[in-house]
Every structure is written in structure tokens, then in C-alpha cells.
């Protein structure tokens, strides 16, 4: 059944359209920066943007930071919200179940398919933005190297580089903490960040799949999921809600930035993985409890 779901995912025009849109945003941003040479001041704008502006190879990290807050979760919520409700609306759900496809098996296959979509989107963003970074922003401008003062750990503002020329292009890439990264380290850390972001979306996917089993409207399930995420984002920044903050689905979304510190700051990354696991278990469980006993009348 998983193969079938993946086949459906790959053959669906929507998959590629949404991934193309997600990849287009960093491209547009890079073009604007390359044309105007206006860099966002350190500490403002999206994470990484000011830090990596002179290091084309690090642009994938900036691109991930650009798509993470809105584009990616929206796409995941739409795809996952469609998973059961979409099949119910089109009538294909009853034919799948009468084949028979076990209901539990179908839910798991849907989660795998949504995860594959997320991973595909993250990989696509990384690859296209790497090309964008190298071609448009250019490795030749990589200059902000180890000489950057500061390197205050725990702050992403520390890596704003002054274009002090000196080292050869691409010879070294600065971590957010100011220490240089070898190329191999960079690749490892980008891979780590990609994995973390993909896993971060599992919670979103599980919530959307749960809502998708309740509602017969794919749109309703997607919007419901987004409402949950927006609420979570609001609470994350609200001091009064500090008691619940560690359990919010979006609380550790940005922890992947810690992959770009030297050394890697693991605590939030681990919390992020753990909280996503909890969300997947709870909401997939709820989806299963609801779906397994549901009358399929559509």
C-alpha cells in the first residue's frame, strides 16, 4: 500500500506544483538581493539571511529558514489534510477499503507518503537554493570568515559578516558561532538540518491526517491544521504561556539552526525530535481510533 501511495504522490501534478512554488521563494529572494546588493541587517529578517549572504554555499540554510515558517507547513497541511478527506470526497476511499486495504495500513501509508512529500520538498529546496546561492550570490563573495568577531553562542545575530577580503573563495565557511566549518562539516550539518525539518513536519502531518479522518472536507482539515499552527506560533512568543511552551508543536521548529553552531548545540534538537514523536503517536492514534470504527458513507 505504501508503494501505491507513493505512486499516487509522484503522479499527482499538485505535488510538483507545490514543490516548485516552495523552491521559487528562495530564488526570488536571492534575485532581489543579488540585484540590489541590499543585505538585511544582522539580526533582522529571516534567520541566516544576513549571515550567509556572502557565502553562497550556505544559502540552502537561509532558504530553509525562508520556507519553514509558512510555505512548508502550508504545503504539508494541504497534502496531509487531503489524505483521507480527499479520497472520501472523490469516492475513491470506499473502493480502496473494499479492495480491501486495511484502515490502519491506509493511515500509515498516508503518513509515509506525506513524509516523503516533505522530504522531497526539503531536498528540492536545498538543491535548488544551493544552485541559486552558487550561481546568483556566488561563492566568490564568500569572505566573512573566521575573522568575524563575536561568535556569541546561542544567538543567530553573531555571524553578520563584514566583507573583509582575505581568504580564497570557498576555502572555509563560517559557522554561526564564528568558527570556521570545513566543507564536509557543512554538508553534514545541512543534511542534519534537512532531516530535522522533515521530522518537524511530521507533527503537522499527523494533526492534518487526524482532522482529515474527522472531516470530509480536505480544505477544512488543512485550514484546521493551520489554525493549530498559528495558535502555537502565537503562544510560543507569549510569555504568559511559558508553562505550555515546551509542548507546542512549533516550539522547536527553529532548533535546526543549532546544527550550524560550533559545536552543535544538541539540546533543543533532541527536544524537537521528541516532541514530534509525541505528536505523531498521539494524533495518529486519535486518527486511527476515529477512522477504524467510522462508517464510510461517502
Amino acid at each position: 500500500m505504501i508503494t501505491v501511495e507513493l505512486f499516487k504522490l509522484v503522479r499527482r501534478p499538485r505535488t510538483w506544483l507545490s514543490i516548485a512554488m516552495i523552491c521559487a521563494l528562495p530564488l526570488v529572494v536571492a534575485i532581489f538581493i543579488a540585484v540590489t546588493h541590499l543585505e538585511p541587517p544582522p539580526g533582522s529578517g529571516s534567520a541566516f539571511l544576513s549571515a550567509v549572504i556572502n557565502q553562497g554555499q550556505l544559502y540552502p540554510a537561509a532558504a530553509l529558514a525562508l520556507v519553514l515558517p509558512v510555505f512548508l507547513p502550508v504545503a504539508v497541511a494541504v497534502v496531509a489534510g487531503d489524505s483521507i478527506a480527499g479520497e472520501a470526497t472523490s469516492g475513491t476511499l470506499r473502493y480502496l477499503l473494499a479492495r480491501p486495504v486495511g484502515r490502519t495500513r491506509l493511515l500509515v501509508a498516508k503518513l509515509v507518503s506525506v513524509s516523503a512529500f516533505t522530504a522531497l520538498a526539503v531536498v528540492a529546496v536545498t538543491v535548488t537554493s544551493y544552485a541559486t546561492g552558487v550561481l546568483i550570490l556566488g561563492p566568490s563573495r564568500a569572505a566573512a570568515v573566521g575573522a568575524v568577531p563575536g561568535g556569541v553562542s546561542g544567538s543567530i545575530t553573531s555571524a553578520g559578516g563584514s566583507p573583509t577580503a582575505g581568504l580564497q573563495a570557498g576555502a572555509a565557511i563560517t559557522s554561526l558561532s564564528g568558527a570556521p566549518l570545513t566543507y564536509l562539516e557543512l554538508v553534514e550539518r545541512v543534511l542534519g538540518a534537512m532531516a530535522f525539518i522533515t521530522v518537524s513536519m511530521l507533527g503537522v502531518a499527523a494533526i492534518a491526517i487526524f482532522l482529515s479522518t474527522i472531516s470530509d472536507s480536505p480544505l477544512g482539515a488543512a485550514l484546521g491544521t493551520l489554525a493549530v499552527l498559528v495558535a502555537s506560533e502565537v503562544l510560543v512568543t507569549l510569555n504568559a504561556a511559558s508553562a505550555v511552551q515546551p509542548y507546542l508543536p512549533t516550539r522547536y521548529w527553529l532548533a535546526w539552526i543549532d546544527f550550524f553552531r560550533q559545536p552543535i548545540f544538541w539540546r533543543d534538537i533532541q527536544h524537537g525530535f521528541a516532541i514530534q514523536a509525541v505528536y505523531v503517536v498521539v494524533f495518529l492514534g486519535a486518527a486511527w481510533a476515529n477512522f477504524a470504527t467510522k462508517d464510510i458513507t461517502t
Partner: protein
Amino acid sequence: MITTENLTKRFGRVQAVRAVGLDVREGDRYGLLGPNGSGKSTLVRMLLGLVYATSGSITVLGESIPRHVGRVLPEIGALIEEPAAYPHLSGRANLRLLDAAGPHGSRRSRRRRVDDALEQVGLAGVDRRPVRAYSLGMRQRLGLAAALVRRPRLLILDEPTNGLDPRGIRDMRDLLTGLNAEGVTIFLSSHLLPEVSALCTRIGVLDTGALVLQDQLAALQQPTGRVLVSTDDPERAVAALDGLVERRDGADLVVRSPDPAQLNARLVAAGVPVRSLLEQRRTLEDIVLEVTGAGADQFGVPGPGNGDGSSDGGGDTDGASSRGDP
């Protein structure tokens, strides 16, 4: 093949199916009749494990439903209300995909089975087109092909002729009759009486969720003891039969007589030129309307003037007496 006992389904306060005891036997061409909203679809969905019964039991192919639904469904082909397919994929891709979903769709024989199913329903030429471009009738054929891909022992078809043109209905009937001759049991639901009358050997009638009638069609269509006589000399016939003529409509007479052969002999002896002589049987319409109390408008009964005599099978007289009843 299908047995239900006291099968009941409640949706909130609405009782959709009430204490139904279906009995579909191996080799049957079973037609479940009922007006729209009588619970046919709910009943079909319960047989397939899509809707859970409130009470009562279901046995299909010897296994209890929904407990062993996974064992039974691979041997069943189903069409559940409208057909459904992924519109951006071709008809063939849809069949392959559906066959790959769930157990028992052997990959090695898949191409052959898909080819056969497309051939059977007459879609072989257009199988590469996306389903988006299919007409309603083609989608219905594709839905039937999907039901046939696994070469089922039992077909459960909900309103199988929906959206088909007369040619398509005829093709469907021929296909189902042929499959039945090869040993496939057919259970279909319909609100179209002519369709069921032409195809089925056994019927059940559902009325507001309850099964009000279930029997062999042949047994239900007993002769009514009346014979429809058509003659060039009705005056002489009326005189010769003396009081046995119940109704006269031009050259056609409805005559009370248990034995057509005897009647014929009597007419010939009296020198009446008999053009045709037909033993009158109850039509399916009479039978159904008698037990349901449903208005004829709730069924797909052909109205006067467009009566499709050919689809009424051989047993019906299609006589004037069968219409116009209150």
C-alpha cells in the same frame, strides 16, 4: 453466498435498515429493488464492511462480516454507487493502482487481468486516456472493470447501469449474464424495474429499510389466470367466449382462462381467427408495487409511451391491464 440475520442500521434517530434477512445463493443473479432512499446503499456498504451494523449479523462467502472482511473482499468485485477514479491517471493506470492496493493482487498476472477487464467492459481502445476525459458511461464501465480485475466469485453492484446509454445497459446485461454462466454470483441493487426484470433470477424488495419480499422471480411471476388474445374478429370471439372476456380494447381481449391451449382450441372451433395468444403473468412492477405501497414514480418505471418492451423479458405481457392500477 450472502446471508444476513436481523441486520439493522441506525444513523442517529433514522433507521436506515431494519431487521433485514437477505439470502443470496450461489449462482444467483439477485436483484435488490427499492425506491431511492430505501436503504439499498447502506445495506450494500454493510456487506462490504464500509458501514458497521448497529445489530444483526452478516455472513458473506461463509465468513463473518466485518470481522473477517479482509479474507472475503479479495473474492468480491464491487461497484458502490458511482464509480470513482483518479482523474489525472489513465483508466489503465487506475486499474493497476487499485489492483496493487491491498493483498491478493498478484503482480505477475496484473497486466493480463487488467487487459481482460478492459476488454470485457469495452474500454480496450481508450485505456490510455486520462479518466478526466471519460464520459459518464465510460467511467461506469471502468468501475465495472475495477470490480472484475480480481476475477471475483461474487459481484456486488450498486446501481450498475447508472449513466449508461441503452447500448451500454445491454452490454452490461450480456456481460453479467455471461459471467453468471461461468459461475459468478451476482448481487445488484437497482431502482430500475426493467433492468432487474431482464437480468435477475431472484429478487428482494426493500421498503423503508425493511425487506418486504424475497423470492425467485419465476415463482413470483405466476400466471394470473388470464390470457391476452388478439384477433381480427373480436365480436365473434366475445360471443364465443361468453362472459369470460374481462376487458376489450379494440382487437385485444383479456380473457379469464387457466389454460391457453384449451382457450385456443375453443376459439378455433368457433371459427375465430386468432392472431396471437399470450398467457398473462404478473409483471415485476405489479409485484413490487403490491408489496411496497410505494408510488410508481419512485421507481424507474418507464412511463406510458416509452415502455421498453424488449427489456421486460419474455414473461411479461406488458398488457394494458398491468397499468392504470391505483
